[in-house]
């Protein structure tokens, strides 16, 4: 003990300090020596391969370069990128995974599983479906916008935190949670991209591993109201020439005992932000008529959305969860989807317009 105190401990301290306290046990990730990757764009490559694209380096003052690789495995891509760049590319700051629509039709889950099981990757990884050539867009924009990747990440983060219902934002955990739940199917935001624009288009529906379809415009808004955020900062109803603001919905779904009818009752609260129609909404009777019009319009749009999901045999609305009961054995997913496909749907809207907003 005395020997340890007098000799070994001081010696150990000296060795520690002289070696700059660099540990042989922990990975050295000195910030200026690594190049953190902020996004991966995955595309369908030639001969059944994967095409991985990323933008390096992330430091503001250096010139950006677009790196693309054709690989069989994601990890292979991770390794080969390092051979092309003077710094080690690290996945610890991977924040976005942009999957091309063509690739998504073939496979998504195995790719996401690989990323999810990587301990380096953070849980805040946004998943996005891209329609069009994202690489072309990047190539053009990288010289004009210095930190394009960073700004895209900030955009996703902003909409995720604010929950305004403008767009569907999904992170890797939310996606995988739905993949492995029997009565729910995952969704992803779908962005349309060309040389000049990167535009939100709607929500993509998945049926387990397969991308089966998408909704956009009004149907996407209905999806936000019924199943996603239950809140829309702004809901323009152009056929009625009215725009509702601060719209909040409460949704009650009920499946009858024979699984023949699905009743959806939606309570909507909001206010009129803009009206350019012919009714005099200052009159209470006219206002009531407008209210009826809004209810029947929303009802029709919601019916369309539900029917679309029935047709796709997909469960983004998680209707199946309403069949569960403590006294009944849960049915299999396949069995439920067969019921769901042929179910009669009844949607009932109760819209309450805040009077003070007028």
């Amino acid at each position, binding site marked *: 003990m005395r020997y340890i105190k007098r000799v070994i401990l001081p010696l150990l*301290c000296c060795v*520690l*300090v002289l070696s*700059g*306290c*660099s*540990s042989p*046990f*922990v*990975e*050295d*990730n*000195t*910030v*200026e020596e*690594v190049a*953190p990757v*902020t996004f991966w764009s995955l595309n369908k490559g030639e001969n059944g391969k994967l095409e991985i694209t990323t933008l390096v380096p*992330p*430091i*503001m*003052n250096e010139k950006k370069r677009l790196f693309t690789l054709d690989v069989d495995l994601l990890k292979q891509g991770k390794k080969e990128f390092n051979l092309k760049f003077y710094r080690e590319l*690290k996945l*610890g*700051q991977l*924040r976005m995974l942009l999957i091309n629509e063509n690739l998504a039709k073939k496979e998504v889950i195995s790719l996401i599983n690989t990323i999810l099981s990587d301990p*380096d990757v*953070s849980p805040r990884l946004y998943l996005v479906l891209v329609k069009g050539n994202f690489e072309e867009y990047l190539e053009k924009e990288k010289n004009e916008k210095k*930190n394009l990747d*960073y700004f895209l*990440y900030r955009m996703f983060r902003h909409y995720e935190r604010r929950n305004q219902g403008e767009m569907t934002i999904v992170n890797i955990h939310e996606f995988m949670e739905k993949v492995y739940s029997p009565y729910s199917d995952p969704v992803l935001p779908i962005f349309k991209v060309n040389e000049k624009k990167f535009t939100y288009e709607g929500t993509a529906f998945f049926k387990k591993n397969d991308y089966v379809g998408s909704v956009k415009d009004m149907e996407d808004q209905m999806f936000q109201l019924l199943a996603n955020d239950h809140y829309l900062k702004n809901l323009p109803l152009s056929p009625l020439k009215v725009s509702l603001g601060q719209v909040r919905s409460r949704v009650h779904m009920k499946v009858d005992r024979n699984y023949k009818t699905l009743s959806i009752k939606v309570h909507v609260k909001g206010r009129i932000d803009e009206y350019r129609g012919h009714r005099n909404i200052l009159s209470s009777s006219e206002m009531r008529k407008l209210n009826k019009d809004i209810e029947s319009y929303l009802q029709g749009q919601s019916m369309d959305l539900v029917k679309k999901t029935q047709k796709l045999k997909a469960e983004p609305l998680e209707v199946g969860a309403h069949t569960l009961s403590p006294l009944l054995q849960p049915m299999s997913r396949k069995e439920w989807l067969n019921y769901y496909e042929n179910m009669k749907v009844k949607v009932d809207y109760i819209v309450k317009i805040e009077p003070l907003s007028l």
Partner: protein
Amino acid sequence: MFWKKKKAATSQEEKEKKTSVPHEAVTLEAFKKITAKMDDAEIVQRQTNSGIPFSLVYIQTLIDHERFNESIVNPIIHSTNKQFVQCIATCKVIKVSSMEEAKNHLLIGCVLVQDVEKNEWWAIKLENPLSRAIENSETETIVYGPKDSFTERVEHNLYMIRRRLPLTELKTEKFQVGSLTKTQVQLLYIEGIANPDIVDIARKNISEVNFDLILESSNLSAFMDDHTNSLFPQSLQTDRPDSCAYSLGLGKLVILLGNTPFALIAPITFFHLFQSPEDYVHRWVIASFLRTLRYLSFLIAILLIPLYVALATHHYQMIPLQILYVMMESRSKLPFTPFWEALIMMVIIEIIKEASLRMPTKTSQTIGIIGGIVIGQAAVEAGFASKVLIVLVGISAIASFLVPNYLVTKATTVIQFLFLILSSFIGILGIALGLILLLAHLNGLSSLKQPFFAPVAPLHWKDWNDLFVRIPLPWIKQRPQYLQPLQKWRVKRRRGSNEQ
């Protein structure tokens, strides 16, 4: 084993008995011998008006000359009484029987008077009350509240406490420590509140001090501390009489030392080191906020730079993306690793801190400017340190000064260095390990055998009302439980006051 010890102790006593010499007779010759080569020692032989010879022995630098003439020389000379010592009414007169005793009296500022006819020696205490005036406390400054602080004289200090606690229960016990310094020590406690077991421990600790030089209260605390190797002080040094009075009222002990304006308060806990006298001056919300800020500052002071090193070296993935960009840009052209960069800057900051403390005020301002602006800015521009680190070092240095206890401020520096090494070695895991070790160490400490980490461990929930926050004073109705005071309640209760 025990037998051996006992035997050893007995043989020691026997040895002391053998070596002890019989009391030497008090004579002028003996005084001449011991005061040889002492220029300030005086041996005077005079006669009273009635012709009775007498001798005076004193050290002129230690005594009050005005009082010497007025109270001793004049009364004796004009005395007609044969028992001339009786005419000295204003001073306490002690009969001296041995040379050892006489020597001790002489050295603490007594005048020794010899009645030559009867060959009797008397000691009259006439110490020069040379002392600075009572001034503001410089170490624990507060805006509102009492401004007086202790001086180097124990009597003054005791008076300042007694003025605040006019109680006969306030007991004082005198000790003398230091074989060369003969420092006067007074142990203060309130009988009936302070736990006698704790008083016994303190009494035993003080009387067992065996050292030649006890010049300062921290010298004494070094012998009284239960854990000498710890970075944390186990007794609180204060120069504020109000703090001492408050602590005595809670059931703690105060130790006053001669020749130092700092008293020791014990037993204390780790959390006392973060309490300022101003906590009881402010409104409770503000006091709680400031106290919380102090704990936070302590954590910032010990963890901020190690955290920077851990993140920059091992865990880049934990840094928010926008900060990562700033860090990477800031560090992209530096020649040093984060560890060396931080170590160099921390050492420089410590040099600046020490230099500005030791220098006169005007020079220290210049040093502050040179250190802060020239070295900080120049280091960044020369590429030796990153801008991020300079900001963090600044925050950390200022945060370390928020802790009111200066000894803890210095301890934070050492802890920070240890955390820096651990964080650089194994990253966040090292910091976690360091925190565990720190908590374990704090938990293992004790102050006068009372737990140092109380009331967190052992848990005393009731003491939490004056721990991280300070609840309104009227609600703090009980004395701290960890002190086991004899009177638990601070308020008079309806059914029989001061119930146990």
